[in-house]
């Protein structure tokens, strides 16, 4: 991957952070209103996405590139 020189638009910078933030909020709230079942599954899914995104870009993608 090479460092880009051109500045990105605000949309390009903030789309992913906003998507991950909204997913996190949905996950946190879904679990509050559930006791097992669909709500908990939705919560787990929504919270795992940001965790896996961090893991992927932070470490896993490098190994695949290698």
């Amino acid at each position, binding site marked *: 991957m090479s*460092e880009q020189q051109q*500045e990105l638009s605000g949309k390009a910078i903030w789309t992913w*952070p906003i998507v991950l*933030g909204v997913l996190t909020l949905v996950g946190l709230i879904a679990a509050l209103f559930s006791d097992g079942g669909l709500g908990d599954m939705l*919560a787990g899914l929504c*919270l795992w996405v940001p965790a896996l995104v961090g893991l992927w870009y932070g470490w896993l993608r*490098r190994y695949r590139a290698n």
Partner: protein
Amino acid sequence: MQNKTIKTWSWVHKWSSLVCTAFMLLLCLTGLPLIFHHEIEHLTGMAVEAPPMPEGTPRVSLDKLLMVAKAQHPDRVVQFLFPDEDDANVWFATMTPTPAPTDDFRSVVMDARTGEVLAQPRYDEGFMYVMFKLHVDLFAGLPGMLFLGVMGLLLLVAIVSGVVLYGPFTRKLDFGTVRRENSRRVKWLDLHNLLGIVTLVWLSVVGITGVINTLADPLIKYWQYDQLSTVLQPYQGKPAVPETERASLQGSLDAALRQVPGMQLSFIAFPGTAYSSPHHNTVFLKGNEPFTSRLIQPVLVDAQTNEVTAAPPSPWYINTLLVSQPLHFGDYGGRPMQIVWAVLDVATIIVLGSGLYLWLAKPQGATRRRRAQSTQADESAVVS
């Protein structure tokens, strides 16, 4: 964003982070075992389970349980009596030298069907107790809690300033770019930004709810003053009702459940304790739905006559406190939630550690500074 503005926010980010980092690292490290406290208690034999018996086996009265608990520690009083959250056949009595708040307590765990003592685990010693105390108040009581609350506020300032800086710092990098081919410091700067932004909302919620939890004691005191002082006016200055003059405890619970039907018991606070008045058994009820089970409804039952004196609904600030607790602890959505909580906790440790590294590994000397200014303009803003 202008350079001057970036420098101002960088200053805010650097100092708000630096002041709270050591304490936040401590909270993340001690929080990790607390996420799995149920599992650890099972593994270490601290969890108590009732033996299997036929479904529908009747339970003994609360008066019998109270008598059994008192017989174990005749020199102590019962402050709280409550059923286990997962198994209503297992009951706990918290016993202390006096009704006043104290860390000196014994727990008697009883089988509600037979009245037998199942165990007397010590929750005030051992690894989990140390983790809990370090996490909640640094072994310093209310001042420790409030201090950690202030550190939590600084964390929130660090988060907000970090978000403000995220745009200028990543304006030339695709999302998730980690420049490994550059210096180690640039790599860790990118990892700091990446993990910081993916954990942003989670850490903000855990931080805000953590700060709210540090205010639990003052909020409960204010609640008593705000809502109960008028109700309790006739009993002001009177000593706690002597045990010999108290009516049936089972009668107190029954009266409370009649007053607010469709709810179940959370816990009973005895006369003179922090959650009651000198003259009442205060029965705290909770709802039956997943969300309402996190909220409580206190019912003040006259300890001498078992008449309900008041059942004021919890005010918004107490409800906020109660909803903050699961959002902070993360043990409210099953095992997957606990595990992801731990993963995000570790990610936060990396964000904190990398922030500290970026500050410590700040380029020294004029040559390195010049080079840094010419080639890494945005990097210098985060740590200068």
